[in-house]
């Protein structure tokens, strides 16, 4: 029965095989509906399977660990995957004949990240990381169009490859310092030898690769270009699911450096710079995806505050934040995909008149950005509240104050988005945006999650707390 432990991973392998078959057999002129419905059904199944496996526990030798922490993140990932598939019925940004590959790569990427959150051995982690990264490199370059996406794809690939190299170098240093590739064993070695410079350098370098995924300063340079260059659905995936995976990974590794104050101080600096730089850069953005990219840099900083507390509450706050960020960022991308129905990019001013074209999308946009900005009663507020509480417990008063000032800066540009959606009128009147009934239901469900997460976050927080306990255990 041990196979049951990796049921979600197996399921994603199966999905990849299905899409592979589609890619081999489907003729380009064939209708795409069958493919999309298959994808949707399989994605729904993925959510069910991943959630059903939530309580499993066990491990494969010392390499692969299945515990509450990994299962919670697998559920998040499956959820993110499902949500992204939900906004793919049109897919104008991808050529029809490439669509089976699009689904295939999306599944493989999610599979890679699922393996990532369970791996506790350096080599496995590296392989899982590359599995997800390579799928993403191709996904970014898949966009239909003339040139922009190649720049984004190549930039992402080169920077990503460099980040991988740094990670490998870091892993080699860790191995050199303690002669182990297994995380629990490394943790032991760290506690006896906390101040070995080689170990700390190795740890920082390894984390650099994961910070790259998280788009944390100074590894954020790819984010605006890739967000802008990739197809909207792919950007939505990068902005939601991969962030959750990256947070999980950083959590696993950060625990190794808990003993070292140098390490924690380094994280403090990175968090502060990342928040401030991301928010200030976002203020001047005109393209909605670039704006969200810089806001992602800022959010990476907020999450890092939770992580650098090195306490159970801090980790729980970071886990909660991962779920919150996935939800609220996704709804922004949902609006973006629906408004930019030709698959192009969207300037903030092009949201003008949205409240007339589709009131429900306008409300979603408002809820999404206010949640990103951390206004109560939204799940984004609760996330920030938990992160700041954890930081305060460790006595970082000024860090919390800087965080709040950043929240203030970010609200300025978020409000400009709301203003565009609600108060500006387009120069020529645009047609109303029609939404299908399932889409409306999905939007309502997400809005409910956002508001309930703001008023009554008990369930999700308890879950995050248990997951954090499993992480440090």
């Amino acid at each position, binding site marked *: 029965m041990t196979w049951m432990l990796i049921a979600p991973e197996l399921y994603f392998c199966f999905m990849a095989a299905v899409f592979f078959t589609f890619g081999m057999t489907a003729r380009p002129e064939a209708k795409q509906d069958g493919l999309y419905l298959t994808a949707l059904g399989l994605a729904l199944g993925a959510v069910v399977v991943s959630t059903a496996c939530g309580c499993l526990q066990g491990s494969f030798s010392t390499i692969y660990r299945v515990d509450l922490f990994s299962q919670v993140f697998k559920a998040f990932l499956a959820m993110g995957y499902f949500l992204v598939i939900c906004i793919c019925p049109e897919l104008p940004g991808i050529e029809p004949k490439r669509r089976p590959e699009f689904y295939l790569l999306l599944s493989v990427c999610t599979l890679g990240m699922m393996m990532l959150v369970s791996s506790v051995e350096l080599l496995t982690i590296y392989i899982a990381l590359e599995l997800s990264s390579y799928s993403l490199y191709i996904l970014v370059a898949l966009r239909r169009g003339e040139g922009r996406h190649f720049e984004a794809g190549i930039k992402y690939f080169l920077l990503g490859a460099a980040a991988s190299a740094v990670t490998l170098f870091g892993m080699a240093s860790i191995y050199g310092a303690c002669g182990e590739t297994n995380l629990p064993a490394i943790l032991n070695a760290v506690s006896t030898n906390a101040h070995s410079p080689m170990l700390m350098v190795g740890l920082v370098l390894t984390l650099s690769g994961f910070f790259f995924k998280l788009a944390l300063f100074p590894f954020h340079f790819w984010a605006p270009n890739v967000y802008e260059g990739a197809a909207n659905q792919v950007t939505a995936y990068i902005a939601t699911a991969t962030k959750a995976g990256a947070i999980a990974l950083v959590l696993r590794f950060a625990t190794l450096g808990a003993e070292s104050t140098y390490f924690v101080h380094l994280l403090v600096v990175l968090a502060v710079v990342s928040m401030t730089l991301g928010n200030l850069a976002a203020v001047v953005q005109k393209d909605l995806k670039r704006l969200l990219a810089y806001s992602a840099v800022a959010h990476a900083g907020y999450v890092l505050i939770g992580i650098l507390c090195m306490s159970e509450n801090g980790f729980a706050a970071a886990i909660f934040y991962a779920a919150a960020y996935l939800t609220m960022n996704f709804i922004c991308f949902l609006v973006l995909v629906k408004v930019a129905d030709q698959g192009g990019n969207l300037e903030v001013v092009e949201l003008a008149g949205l409240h007339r074209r589709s009131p429900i999308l306008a409300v979603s946009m408002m809820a999404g950005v206010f949640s990103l900005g951390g206004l109560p009663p939204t799940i984004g507020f609760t996330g920030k509240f938990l992160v700041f509480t954890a930081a305060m417990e460790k006595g970082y008063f000024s860090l919390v104050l800087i965080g*709040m000032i950043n929240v203030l800066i970010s609200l300025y540009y978020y409000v400009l988005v709301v203003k565009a959606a609600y108060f500006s009128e387009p120069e020529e009147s645009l047609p109303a945006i029609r939404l299908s009934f399932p889409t409306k239901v999905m939007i309502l469900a997400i809005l409910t999650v956002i508001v309930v997460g703001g008023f009554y976050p008990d369930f999700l927080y*308890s879950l995050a707390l248990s997951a954090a306990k499993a992480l440090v255990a």
Partner: protein
Amino acid sequence: MNPTLSDFPFLSAIMLSCILGLVAILVIPGRQKGLIRWVSAFSSGLSLILGIFLFAAYDRTQGGLQFVEKIVWMKSLGIHYFNAVDGFNLPLLLLTGIVHFTGVLTMWELEERVKEFFALYFVLVTGVFGFFMSMDLFFLFVWYDVSLFPMYPLIVIWGSTRKEYGAMKLFLYLLAGSALILPAMIYLFVQSGGVGFDLFGMMQPGTFSPFQQKFAFLFLYLGFGILAGVWPFHTWSPSGHVAAPTSVSMLHAGVLMKLGAFGVLRVAIFLCPEGWQYWAPWMAVLATIGIVYGVLVGLTQTDLKYVVAYSSVSHMGIVGLGLATVTAQGLTGAVYQMFAHGIMTALLFSSVGYLHDKTDTKSIPELGGMSRIMPVASAYFIVGAFAGMGVPGFANFWAELTVILSAFKVYPVSGVAAVSALVISALFMLRVVQKTFYGEKNQRFAGLPDVSPALGFPRMVLIATLVLFGFFPSLMLDVIQPSVFAFMEGLPK
């Protein structure tokens, strides 16, 4: 135990009447403007009735917390859903009920995007009610921000006079306030050592060290002070009030600024009494400057709404001065002034709003002789102006008198400054009234209709309230004083 009347969750019922109103508005199609107005009026009327009932049913001899509702909300963080009334928040709940109801009626003639207007308006009011009745710090903060964010759309869509600038300034200022409040709040929560966010658990003496109280008080005072219009953080208020549509100005100057003052009282002073005693002289300085400054800047204004807005800055300074005296009398006066000023300023803004709607101008030199064109509408403004001057017979008289008497004992200089400022402002208001409503008639406005009895009704309600509490101040004082005395006795000497 038999269930009694006071076991019925009246406070939640007030919230629920707002939330149900909101849901109903959202469900009704936007075309049916009449139905939306009636639903809004009905729902706001219901919350007003519940508010009046609470005010009447509050046991004045017993005092203390009544109508308590307490449920564990999040155990892991010690958050409770904890609502109650005492002598401090009861007047403000009543105030909110009155201004909410009259504000809906004042906007009866609105035609543009009616559904969205009332939906946002109800979100705002829900937040305000929640803030006043909540006794849990977490919920207090959540409701505080819920009441802030609808201000931006309300001003930008339906406002006038540099509305985008005014709205953005207001929004960022007020959120800067919450950026100071939240760290202080979390700081207190962490330092309280597991008490949780329960306000009454946290205010037990000895929970916080004197240093912690002084430190947190500063942040809380500045954070809430921004919303209370404390000089020099008041600059959002005139531009915001002027830009806002009528009922939003009413609600904002009438109720929202009290959120700030009440936050100073309920959070900063309750939790950090030693910080309060330590910083009080500085609070008095800022409050006195605010009183004088509001009057002096008001003198130079030619826009009626700016005149009213700067008088609000000055009157909120009186609230601040009352809080700064650290005496029972000063606290009582401050709470009374919050109530009286809220009603008075709502009346003034609603009268100016009517003039502005009809004449399309708020400029004092352009208006003139209005009392011969629209006598009733003019009368409403003039009554409001008299109330603002502190003429006996209106609630404001008692409130200002109480504060200034207590200020004379503690800070004689501030007392003298405040009295002189009030005298100047009275003279000035009389000149505004004279120029606007008497004198040469502007022929351009000659044919304009006077305010109809239906539209006049909300203003009459406001005047009646001012007069009622002006002639029977004990109605209000009996509610406020037991709680004030109980609180002052618990202070460390």
